[in-house]
């Protein structure tokens, strides 16, 4: 099977660029340039140097012995939480800021939900001395105050999105509208493998450093570059796309995509897009999304602000539809318990998003001889308030 994007920007029936004409020139410029720029020697050397010296890559692959013993298998953690800014998001923003510079752009816009991508974007804009505007839902600004402060400290302007449900999807709409109004000098750094082609492919390529490093690290530690399974959480799906990328055609490697079930799939408060979604268009991409019978996009729910996106990247929609990837659904409670377990057994406090990936270990059976990689996409500092309130209310 082939899981690469085709020349029209589709993964099977998913993907494409369903954009208003006002964005055509911007998207066409990106589409015609992104591979040329990304494959140039100049870009590659800058990108690799920044990932090494600024982000701190390669991120370690760590054999989590106590978790392995508990689950009676071999669990390796891909430590994206140790990257600068605390998550995988920086891999993509480093790549896109270099691309923006190569395109001669002087103004950067981004959307953010929990604020991780906003912080990663504000960081690279500070690094390059470029103007940075981050759109963030008015409700998210209230509930993610520490990340708003970080963005401001880094010099970004945080603009509240007051439209619609005032969360990530509306911040994305506002960023798209900004781009419509500023088509020439502005580059839009999308934070996940979503949006119109070429974004899903471009972001997946920038994040693919995760699985590229895994191949040599696994070879060194296990004698084989392939694990038996890779587990990653999926909101839009950027860390999962990066962790799966070099194994898409290695069909003996199980790809396990973990979605947020929120309070439960049938409760009406969920973000389990692969189960609750249907085919449609969101943010310029044909994919699976949560919508009413009349085609209005539904606001999803998860305790994790990074997983409550009503769609899923078109690559993941294709992987799940073709059964190349398995989708697992984890509730808020299950994720919280796994966060505590990982903290207490491995001394690592994972992000709430990542905690969903850990919780999937309770739902999938592995053999004692299996090598399982969990993509530890981010650290949990930003979630401490939630953890203390929900897990340790009396301490």
């Amino acid at each position: 099977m082939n899981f690469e994007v085709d020349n029209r920007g589709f993964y099977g029936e998913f993907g494409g660029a369903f954009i208003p004409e006002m964005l055509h020139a911007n998207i066409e410029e990106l589409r015609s340039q992104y591979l040329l720029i990304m494959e140039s020697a100049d870009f590659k050397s800058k990108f690799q140097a920044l990932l090494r010296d600024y982000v701190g890559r390669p991120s370690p692959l760590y054999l989590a012995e106590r978790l392995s013993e508990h689950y009676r298998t071999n669990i390796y953690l891909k430590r994206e939480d140790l990257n600068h800014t605390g998550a995988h998001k920086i891999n993509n923003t480093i790549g896109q800021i270099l691309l923006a510079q190569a395109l001669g752009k002087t103004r950067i816009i981004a959307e953010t939900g929990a604020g991780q991508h906003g912080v990663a974007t504000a960081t690279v804009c500070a690094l390059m001395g470029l103007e940075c505007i981050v759109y963030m839902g008015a409700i998210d600004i209230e509930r993610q105050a520490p990340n708003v402060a970080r963005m401001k400290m880094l010099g970004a302007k945080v603009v509240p999105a007051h439209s619609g449900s005032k969360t990530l999807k509306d911040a994305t709409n506002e960023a798209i509208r900004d781009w419509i109004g500023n088509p020439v000098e502005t580059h839009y750094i999308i934070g996940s493998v979503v949006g119109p082609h070429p974004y899903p492919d471009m972001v997946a390529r920038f994040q693919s450093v995760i699985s590229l490093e895994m191949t040599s690290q696994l070879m060194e530690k296990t004698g084989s570059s392939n694990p038996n399974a890779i587990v990653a959480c999926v909101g839009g799906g950027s860390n999962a796309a990066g962790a799966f990328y070099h194994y898409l055609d290695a069909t003996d490697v199980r790809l396990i995509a973990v979605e947020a079930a929120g309070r439960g799939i049938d409760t009406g408060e969920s973000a389990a897009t692969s189960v609750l979604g249907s085919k449609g268009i969101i943010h310029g991409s044909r994919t699976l999304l949560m919508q009413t019978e009349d085609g209005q996009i539904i606001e999803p729910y998860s305790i994790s602000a990074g997983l409550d996106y009503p769609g899923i990247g078109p690559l993941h929609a294709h992987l799940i539809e073709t059964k190349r990837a398995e989708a697992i659904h984890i509730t808020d409670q299950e994720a919280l318990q796994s966060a505590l377990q990982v903290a207490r057994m491995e001394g690592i406090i994972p992000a709430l998003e990542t905690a969903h990936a850990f919780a999937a270990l309770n739902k999938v059976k592995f053999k004692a001889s299996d090598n399982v990689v969990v993509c530890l996409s981010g650290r949990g500092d930003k979630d401490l308030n939630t953890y203390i309130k929900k897990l340790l209310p009396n301490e």
Partner: protein
Amino acid sequence: MNRIDALFQQKKKEILSIYFTAGYPKLEDTCTILRTLQAAGADLVEVGMPYSDPMADGPTIQESGSVAIKNGMTVATLFAQIRSCRAEVEMPIIVMGYLNQMMQFGMEAFLRSAKEAGVDGLIVPDLPADVFEQEYRDLFNTYGIHLSFLITPQTSEARIRHIDSISTGFIYVVSDASITGAKAGISEAQIAYFKRIEEMELGKPRLIGFGISNAATFHTACQHSQGAIIGSAFIKSIGADERDLAARITQFMDGIRPPV
């Protein structure tokens, strides 16, 4: 003949098209607005199908859409409303909406329902030309529904020619790099762009929209096209209060084009 083609055959200048959001201010206002607009001299009407995530639209249209969705407006309700008063309205009726709702309804079912309701054309800002040609053009032809594509100041000449060749009815000339309702007034640069398009001598008529808000901007736009479209300014003028809806519509229309 499609009513849109008949209009452009019969009238070459100063065509006034009004956009309104269906289901706003109240769910059942659609037919009142249609009848009043016709009596007040509109030539063409664009009925906006309210959508949760209208990425090409500004705050006025999005907010009116949110109200309309809360009021209970759906695709099926909209078609039923148009159908119920179509016989009283002679103007061409265009439905403007986003592709996701059409996909959910099923594109063929959508076109069939549109035809049955007496709709003459669609504007679908997020339907790309290549997808239209490969997946939908035959269906539009089968049901005789026109589709107007948009062009902007960034659209290349070659692409404008292509859009001219695939659009049916008219071409929607977006006046500036902007979302709907974003700006007031028309700049020299915009006039230069209107002239550039005018001089291309396209096969299809052109209506200019986005940022057309009053008599002055309407008449400026009309000097370089067959007509213009007013949306956000109209929606603002009718407001959220349904009292005297017809009177306020008439007053707005008189301000754009005084009664003869």
